[in-house]
């Protein structure tokens, strides 16, 4: 609520700051008859040439720099978001397996979890390399450990999904996926 009020206030101030100069500009054009005072000349001074070259160069360099930065930033975000989507897909697969199969071999489950962990590690390392900061990233480890505990706490060599507490598994997967979506939103915003 407080955030919404601040946002609306900022929007109002921005609109005012934009409208006042526009009003002043049109007032100047209409009332001051500025075009009567304009004088066009064919003379070019060295300063004009220098000014033209400098302005063009600065504009080109600035445009190139801004475009490059923007493209790089978007590329980094897309890269990390794809990893996050892949993590979500793997969690969904583990959950689907628990719904569709009554029993699976423990080694298969361990392999699935190892793959999931490997993707999380790759994501974390990529975020460090790309200087992308997000506090929620550590929560992925917490939910991974919870999922690991839930799905590999077995007496023998098979995971019996019919014995698992489905509600706990569902809660764990849901929270895991929600954290991933929070991270995606956070990365997109910054």
């Amino acid at each position, binding site marked *: 609520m407080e955030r919404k009020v601040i946002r609306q206030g900022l929007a109002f101030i921005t609109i005012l700051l934009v409208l006042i100069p526009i009003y002043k500009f049109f007032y100047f054009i209409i009332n001051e008859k500025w075009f009567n005072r304009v004088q066009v000349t064919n003379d070019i001074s060295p300063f004009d040439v220098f000014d033209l070259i400098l302005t063009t160069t600065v504009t080109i360099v600035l445009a190139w720099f801004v475009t490059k930065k923007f493209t790089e930033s978007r590329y980094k975000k897309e890269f990390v978001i794809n990893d996050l989507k892949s993590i979500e897909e793997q969690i969904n697969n583990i959950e689907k397996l628990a719904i569709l199969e009554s029993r699976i071999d*423990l*080694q298969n489950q*361990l*392999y699935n*979890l*190892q793959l999931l*962990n490997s993707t999380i*590690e790759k994501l974390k390392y990529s975020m460090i390399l790309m200087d992308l900061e997000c506090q929620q990233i550590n929560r992925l*480890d917490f939910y*991974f*450990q919870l999922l*690991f*505990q839930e799905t*590999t*706490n*077995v*007496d*023998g*060599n*098979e995971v019996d999904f019919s014995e698992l507490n489905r509600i706990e598994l569902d809660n764990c997967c849901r929270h895991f996926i929600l954290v991933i979506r929070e991270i995606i939103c956070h990365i997109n915003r910054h």
Partner: protein
Amino acid sequence: MENERINIAKDFSSLLGGRYKKIGPFSGELFFEEVLESKYMKAIENNCQLEIFLDGTRGYSSSFLDESFGKLARIFGLEKVRKTLIFRTNDFQWVIDYINQNVWKEK
């Protein structure tokens, strides 16, 4: 004195099971009884540390970890076990984190 060592994949198995030996092969219970307990006792007798190499296996189940390393801490005391065991790994850093945060959780 040189440290005691256990390479789980070589000294026990690369395909690890669940909790109990009567239900499946290469369980945490079997690992505790046949490998871990004796090596730990030896390390304590020799006043050295026990290095455990985790790499080379297909993975660890939470019940295997609890029935082996958890049981060790329950029998010999958490602080002593923490000081004696050193885990070595390139692939299973998260397993070490899991042991420290969940299996060896202080109550």
